């Protein structure tokens, strides 16, 4: 139940008519920014995120260079018009944190050691926010990295799961996110099934947690299929 007393699950269906385990309509596109090495647009229902990848490229200032490995820099940013009340532009505490966790989620997938002294820059811009922006951003970043031809172990897929009105659900939207009992973001290496990001707030017992993890894994598989399709289609197109 939300703070206003509104029910979030009616007759086993969510407010937007989804089943508990159903994802929102997902759209993905790659190569949308010409000047970037790789780029992508990912829509999860009302959440839209653009990611662009620049590099591997020379890293300056020089003191930031690592002589044995490249570094990954990640910027997550929400556009001022992405939310209902205008968000004041520029980095804040939240976006700095999400930039960091997004970087940590993507980093294990990339062969950074192939590019000593260089950097790979990933920019995630959220154009429209309706819950689960960080996982949308990570999905977009992973697509953009693959599009940029960056050597990677695997694609990274992310999704959110949670508990609303006592029901375990996948892919929370904005309203559900704000009124959830549990909200969990998870990113994983898609084919290796290794988790690279796991964040949660709220409290669950062990059984529910295991169910949530399974649900997240299943959702990630679905998302991975879409990522795969989009990339293959793009490179097939004449």
């Amino acid at each position, binding site marked *: 139940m939300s703070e206003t007393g509104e029910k979030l699950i009616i007759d086993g269906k969510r407010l937007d008519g989804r089943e508990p385990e159903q994802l929102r309509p997902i759209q993905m596109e790659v190569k949308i920014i010409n000047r970037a*090495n*790789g780029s992508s647009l990912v829509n999860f229902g009302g959440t839209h995120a653009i990611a662009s990848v620049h*590099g*591997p*490229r*020379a*890293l300056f200032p020089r003191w930031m260079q690592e*002589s*044995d490995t490249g570094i990954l820099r990640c910027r997550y940013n929400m556009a001022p018009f992405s939310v209902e009340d205008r968000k004041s532009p520029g980095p804040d505490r939240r976006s700095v944190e999400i930039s960091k966790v997004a970087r940590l989620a993507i980093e294990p*997938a990339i*062969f950074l050691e*192939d*590019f*000593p*002294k*260089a950097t790979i820059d990933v920019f995630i811009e959220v154009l429209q926010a309706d819950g689960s922006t960080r996982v949308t951003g990570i999905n977009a970043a992973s697509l953009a990295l*693959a*599009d*940029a*031809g*960056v*050597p*990677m*172990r*695997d*694609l990274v897929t992310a999704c959110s799961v949670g508990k609303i009105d006592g029901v375990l659900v996948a892919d929370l939207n904005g309203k559900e996110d704000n009124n959830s009992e549990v909200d969990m973001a998870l990113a994983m*290496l*898609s*084919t*290796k099934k290794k988790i690279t990001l796991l964040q949660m707030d709220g409290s669950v017992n062990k059984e529910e947690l295991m169910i949530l993890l399974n649900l997240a894994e299943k959702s990630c598989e679905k998302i991975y299929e879409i990522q*795969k399709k989009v*990339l*293959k289609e793009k*490179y*097939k197109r*004449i």
Partner: protein
Amino acid sequence: MEIKEIVLPGELIAEKKGRKAGRGTYFEGEKVFAGVLGIPRVDENEISVMPLSGVYTPSIEDKVVGIIQGVEISGWTVGINSPYLAFLPLSEGVSEFVDTQRTDISRFFDINDIISCKISKVTKNKTIQVSMRSIGSRKLYGGITIKVTPTKIPRIIGKGGSMISLIKEKTGCEIIAGQNGIVWMRGERKDKAIEAIMTIERESHTIGLTEKIEKLLGEVV
């Protein structure tokens, strides 16, 4: 039109079976996975993936087209369209004796000059040296350069240089395609040559490209 199969990072290509996991791949145990988005190639002794995009990573003996970025006391720094700058030592750039105390070496190569050269040294932490002491290395006067995806240069050159000589022949341009993705060209009909090269870059993973280029260039002759 027939299209070659494409693999994504993390996709299983084949069992290793004593073969080498080559470029664009990595292995875990006996399984070889794609490490980059591209077209897989499974040979008798090597499994590799030809990437479809990405930046140029220098490797020794590559013939590249470079642009002079800086003039130092005893050499030049050369931009080679990769994350790393290359260095061209004086002795590798000019064959005559030069007294560095008295000469300003920018009289040989100055900033923004274009050269064709060869990668002569690559260290583990990517310090790169180029040399002009090989056949075909020279300063390139006039003309223009365009940048293409480095991984597509082999397709632009073609088997035994067939594709590039077709373009040269049909347009009458001088063309040098560096493996780093910089293509230099000079000639009157370079617009057609650019069109042909861009077409190859866009459609490099399709089959029957040579005929298409032949047709495209055939129209103008």
